[in-house]
């Protein structure tokens, strides 16, 4: 006979059954029984106490994105739960597997506006893959097993389990079985062989093909297959923001990032290609600009695990519904060995213009002021391009995505779909827990860091090592950039008066330096990287720096701006 245990313990045991080792959370009244039990299991489950529940979700995201495991979050009811919403939405947009457990008042009081009661299921349904309220202890194994299965399979995403207090203290007969089947849910569809044949033929018949590799490559661990396909058919590969690092930056077929602030060659060739092969990406408007005109001249192949993405934003010629790794594997034998020398060479003229007009002035500036791209480039080089890039949102995000280089996959953690300021610091902390052996470089703006700056407390408490680089322009830079370009330089509510970041870091026991001039930069970077333990650089950068190239929102690649006054004209 299986023994009877309390619901709270059943939850903990279920987490252990699912292979969980690390949890990010924050306690409160409606979840105390679970924390009480966590204490007894502290040898097996490492609970990281954040300083704000939003931080817990982003930390779990960082943890998941670097490790491929499902991130786990625990918080209390009411305000604890509502504080999670930003991170849950972010994980939904960026397909990150999370299991989020919220305490809830006893089911007998549900609907009575009891103290710290919130309709968590109602609030989270639109921003989760699945959400479920556990109202009695017997339900726990079923619900937890299902939650992990749903969060991590198919197109991953966040799942919420709202855990009523009576179910935490109620007793149940313990037994556990992992879930691998749900009647109404087919996470990995069988691949349609006819579509594979058709798509292979399209690839073989194309003369100017290009690949757009997204986050899906990372999620299905299809990096090797992607390279094999690209090399065999000699196809240039571009990345979305979240797809960065799926192919090494120095690979001869890698042609850069797509989108608003992406590379000229990558973007411009979407106008010239005859076949656009989108894998594990979703044609976000920050990639496409005006979606109606995007790759309109080309045939479009879309490979994705989420059928609802097909034809959602851009019309496809053929689509294959399936796991990227399995699909590419099935394609490779049917692909003819090819060489597209002329097509590949045609990227060069774009690259040359970009190097001269954009890249050089950004990373080797002639002005006295330090540029963001310059800092990013130096740190990427100093780490041998082996570090993990974590970004916040804004100019710092776009410039670090542009100038950081990657040797290894799963090396970028950034908030793509939701663009959440404040994402970076907790995500960097979570990433360190997910891959303690890797160097974590977290770039942020002076605005973004202040959105979740309280998480420095986690660094203090757990003594972890992340490198914090504030690219400080005393502005909400990206908004200021739009104001400069499109709102007559009216800098409405974008100048910031900032605190002394060095003193704040010191108060949390973190070594820090202010960097005000170029001469100090190399030394400071070296000291930061050589330091055992976290280190913060507050780097004063050009106040009115800009991110270029830029395709203004809703426009086409023909409107690509090289700088504030010059448009790109193809040579």
């Amino acid at each position, binding site marked *: 006979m299986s023994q009877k245990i309390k619901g709270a313990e059943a939850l903990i045991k279920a987490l252990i059954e699912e292979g969980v080792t690390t949890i990010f959370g924050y306690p409160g009244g409606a979840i105390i029984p679970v924390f009480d039990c966590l204490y007894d299991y502290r040898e097996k489950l490492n609970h990281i106490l954040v300083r704000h529940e939003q931080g817990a979700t982003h930390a779990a995201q960082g943890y998941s994105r670097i490790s491929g495991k499902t991130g786990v979050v625990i918080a209390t009811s009411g305000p604890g739960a509502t504080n999670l919403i930003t991170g849950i939405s972010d994980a939904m947009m960026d397909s990150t597997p999370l299991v989020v457990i919220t305490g809830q008042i006893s089911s007998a009081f549900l609907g009575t506006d009891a103290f710290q009661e919130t309709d968590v299921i109602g609030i989270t349904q*639109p921003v989760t893959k*699945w959400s479920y*309220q556990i109202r009695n202890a017997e339900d726990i194994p079923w619900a937890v097993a299902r939650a992990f299965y749903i969060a991590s399979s198919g197109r991953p995403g966040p799942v919420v389990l709202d855990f009523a207090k009576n179910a935490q203290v109620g007793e149940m007969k313990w037994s556990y079985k992992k879930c*691998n*089947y749900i009647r109404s849910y087919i996470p990995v569809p069988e691949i349609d062989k006819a579509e594979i044949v058709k798509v292979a033929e399209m690839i073989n018949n194309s003369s100017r093909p290009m690949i757009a590799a997204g986050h899906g490559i990372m999620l299905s661990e299809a990096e090797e297959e992607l390279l094999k396909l690209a090399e065999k058919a000699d196809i240039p590969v571009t990345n979305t923001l979240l797809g960065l690092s799926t192919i090494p930056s120095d690979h001869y077929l890698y042609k850069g990032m797509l989108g608003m602030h992406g590379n000229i060659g990558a973007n411009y060739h979407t106008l010239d290609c005859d076949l656009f092969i989108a894998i594990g990406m979703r044609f976000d408007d920050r990639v496409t600009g005006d979606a109606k005109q995007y790759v309109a001249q080309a045939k479009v192949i879309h490979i994705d695990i989420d059928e609802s993405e097909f*034809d*959602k934003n851009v019309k496809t010629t053929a689509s294959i519904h399936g796991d990227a790794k399995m699909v590419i594997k099935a394609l490779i034998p049917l692909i003819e060995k090819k060489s597209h020398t002329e097509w590949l060479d045609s990227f060069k003229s774009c690259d040359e213009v970009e190097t001269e007009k954009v890249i050089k002035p950004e990373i080797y500036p002639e002005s006295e002021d330090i540029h963001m791209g310059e800092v990013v480039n130096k740190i990427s080089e100093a780490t041998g391009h082996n570090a993990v890039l974590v970004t916040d949102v804004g100019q710092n995000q776009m410039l670090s995505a542009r100038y950081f280089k990657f040797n290894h996959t799963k090396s970028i953690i950034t908030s793509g779909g939701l663009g959440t300021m404040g994402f970076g610091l907790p995500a960097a902390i979570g990433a360190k827990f997910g891959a303690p052996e890797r160097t974590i470089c977290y770039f942020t703006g002076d605005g973004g860091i202040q959105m979740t700056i309280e998480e420095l407390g986690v660094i203090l408490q757990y003594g972890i090592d992340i490198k914090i680089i504030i690219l400080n322009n005393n502005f909400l830079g990206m908004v200021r950039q739009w104001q400069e370009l499109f709102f007559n330089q009216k800098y409405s509510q974008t100048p910031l008066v900032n605190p002394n970041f060095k003193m704040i870091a010191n108060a949390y026991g973190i070594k820090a330096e202010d960097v005000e001039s170029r001469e100090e930069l190399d030394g400071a970077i070296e000291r930061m990287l050589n330091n055992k333990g976290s280190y913060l650089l507050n780097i004063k950068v050009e106040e009115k720096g800009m991110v270029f190239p830029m395709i203004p929102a809703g426009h086409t690649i023909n409107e690509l701006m090289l700088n504030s006054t010059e448009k790109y004209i193809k040579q």
Partner: protein
Amino acid sequence: MDNILYTITVFSENRVGLLNQISIIFTRRKLNIESLSVSPSSIKGIHKFTITTYSDQETMEKVVKQIEKRIDVLKAFFYTNKDIVYQEIALYKVPTNKLLEEENLEQIIRKHNARILEITKEYTVLEKSGHSEETESLFNELKQYGITQFVRSGRVAVTKSTIEYVTDYIEEQKSRKDKMQS
């Protein structure tokens, strides 16, 4: 593109909160739900939603895929009126004394194939099933007697197709389950 009336049918597990999940998808796409009916389907444990909305084919394709993406939804379909046999039911409450004054009452009831469900001294309740134009037309005819209450159900529909996709789907899933667990 001109909007026409579409009928969407959704088959789901019988789980709390599904109606909310489905209706959110319409809200996000700014689609107004014209009518809605939910009931157990012919298959045990499976619920059927029948929803009508004015839209276009492309939007319907996207909406149905997004509905199917919800974990507890088995299948969703969309149809135009020619693909389905559909029906609504309407109830009319009319003051009895007014009806009794009407010489052609019999003709009205016959013409519309209406039924009388209850007669009291104060009121009479009539029932009619049909397409909305038909229930509407009886409404217009009874208006002169002062209708005190009127209600129309959501549309219910069955397909004209000879293939039963949901039954097939459930069969397929059974064999998938056997494969997974062997």
